[in-house]
């Protein structure tokens, strides 16, 4: 039991290690550009947000976004590639491992990749901001990243399982993933939303992730409601990913 999942995870980590430099450069490009242009370049034009400078305000969101997007991308494209292009999923399936092993292996791989990429970006940004965050706050922040990576890795695997055409996978990213990330108060405080819209925004799990994680990192406060919302989302997306993969495989 689980041998298959571990084999698959090890394989994915070997491939990730091999491309470490390229992966790290790619993953750093957007958050660093954003940080430099908006956080530093426009610093003088943007006032303090919720008591901190804008540069500090966006750091948690940039890290979270990198982590969950990487988890989603790696899972979705990984699953799609192995299923449709290389057909390696078929090869996995004639070995004495279960379909459950395969999906678990893939989810854990996506999670690890997202988490590691988040850490890389996190370290870079923390360095640029002069390590102004408290260690304890950092730990509670990691809990959010952890849950976020699980959710997005499961959702990515789900999309990679259900979607056969690459252009449709790209569409899901543009139409669903990016909006729910950007709407969730990633680059501005939720208080900027009119009261009539706020409840809807708050019901998106990504709000729990981005708003919750920022609060955690900046003030160390843990929002129980947010964490509950994220845990439930993680459980649901996990079961959906596993169920749909099993269904797809067993026809």
């Amino acid at each position: 039991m689980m041998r298959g999942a571990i084999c698959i995870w090890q394989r994915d980590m070997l491939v990730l290690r091999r491309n470490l430099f390229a992966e790290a450069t790619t993953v750093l490009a957007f958050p660093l550009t954003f940080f430099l242009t908006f956080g530093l370049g426009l610093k003088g034009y943007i006032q303090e947000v919720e008591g901190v400078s804008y540069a500090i305000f966006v750091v948690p969101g940039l890290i979270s976004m990198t982590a969950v997007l990487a988890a989603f991308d790696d899972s979705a494209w990984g699953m799609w590639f192995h299923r449709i292009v290389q057909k390696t999923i078929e090869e996995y399936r004639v070995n004495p491992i279960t379909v459950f092993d395969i999906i678990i292996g893939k989810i854990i791989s996506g999670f690890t990749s997202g988490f590691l990429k988040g850490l890389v970006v996190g370290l870079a940004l923390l360095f640029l901001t002069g390590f102004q965050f408290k260690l304890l706050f950092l730990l509670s922040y990691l809990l959010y990243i952890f849950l976020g990576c699980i959710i997005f890795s499961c959702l990515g695997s789900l999309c990679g399982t259900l979607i056969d055409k690459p252009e449709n996978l790209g569409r899901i990213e543009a139409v669903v993933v990016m909006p729910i990330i950007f709407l969730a108060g990633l680059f501005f405080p939720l208080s900027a939303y009119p009261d009539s819209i706020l409840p809807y925004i708050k019901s998106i799990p990504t709000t729990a992730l981005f708003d919750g994680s920022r609060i955690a990192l900046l003030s160390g406060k843990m929002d129980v409601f947010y964490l509950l919302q994220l845990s439930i989302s993680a459980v649901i997306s996990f079961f959906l990913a596993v169920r749909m993969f099993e269904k797809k495989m067993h026809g």
Partner: protein
Amino acid sequence: MIVPVENEIELKNVTKAYGSLMAVKDVSFTVPRGMVFGLLGPNGAGKTTLVNMLTTLLKPTSGSAFVGGHDVVRAAARVRSLIGVVLQENNLDRYLTARENLIFHAKMHGMPPSTYHPRIDDLLSLMGLTERQKDFPNKFSVGMQRRLVVARALVHDPRILFLDEPTTGLDPQAKRMIWDYFLSLKGKRTIFLTTHNMEEADFLCDQITIIDHGSPVASGTASQLKEMAESSWFYEIEVDGRSDEYLRAFQRLPFIESASLEDGMIRVCLKKEGSLGSLVEQIDLRDLRRINSRKPSLEDVFLKLTGRRLRQ
């Protein structure tokens, strides 16, 4: 404990439907242990569908199948621990080197490094890939990829091998080498192979089943199958140019069972003896180079039974 079974593979009324399309229709047969069994059929006959069901990739719509004595649906994991599989497509991992592909497979089978390293060395050398073991398979020619896929299926020394067109894309030398290896397994391992290559079926298989449109149309040893065709009359005719024209003319004649063009020779199968005279009358004698009578090949049997030629 391995339960001793006479038949390593057993199909009982297996059917697979894709919507309204019946890819495999009510197929039943058995393959005794140690035998090389060949499944012959034209494109779309249902060979791959059958292999996919026996290797637990697809569930039969109805009927049941057993591999190594285990139900392919209810004891799929047991079945998978006994089989080695070469699927029709080269499904290699292009992000792993040739050797890593094999190691990954060994790990999936729970083999320890002390066992799999020597085994992989042997297989790489057998397949002539030792020099290229550190390369990624997308840098390989199609034939080299195929050899690696075959090697991968052999890493864990499976009791039962399923090979879906194992030698397509291979040059004659590589083909021969792999055939010899399969022959050396005869009696010790059970091999289920699908092929379009008559020579392959003739050379390797103890038992051949021809399927068409999802159902078996004949089965037996290669010589039994050829005997079936002996009631037909086969000739090869060579003409000067205009072979295509003659071929089309022949195909319209009522006493011709089938006619085809191969290496410049028109191969005909007559429906009854004595119609050769009428056939020759159709040819302008200035065009005629020669006429040979010949023994039926598996290809002829195939053509006779399915009315179609095999892709080759």
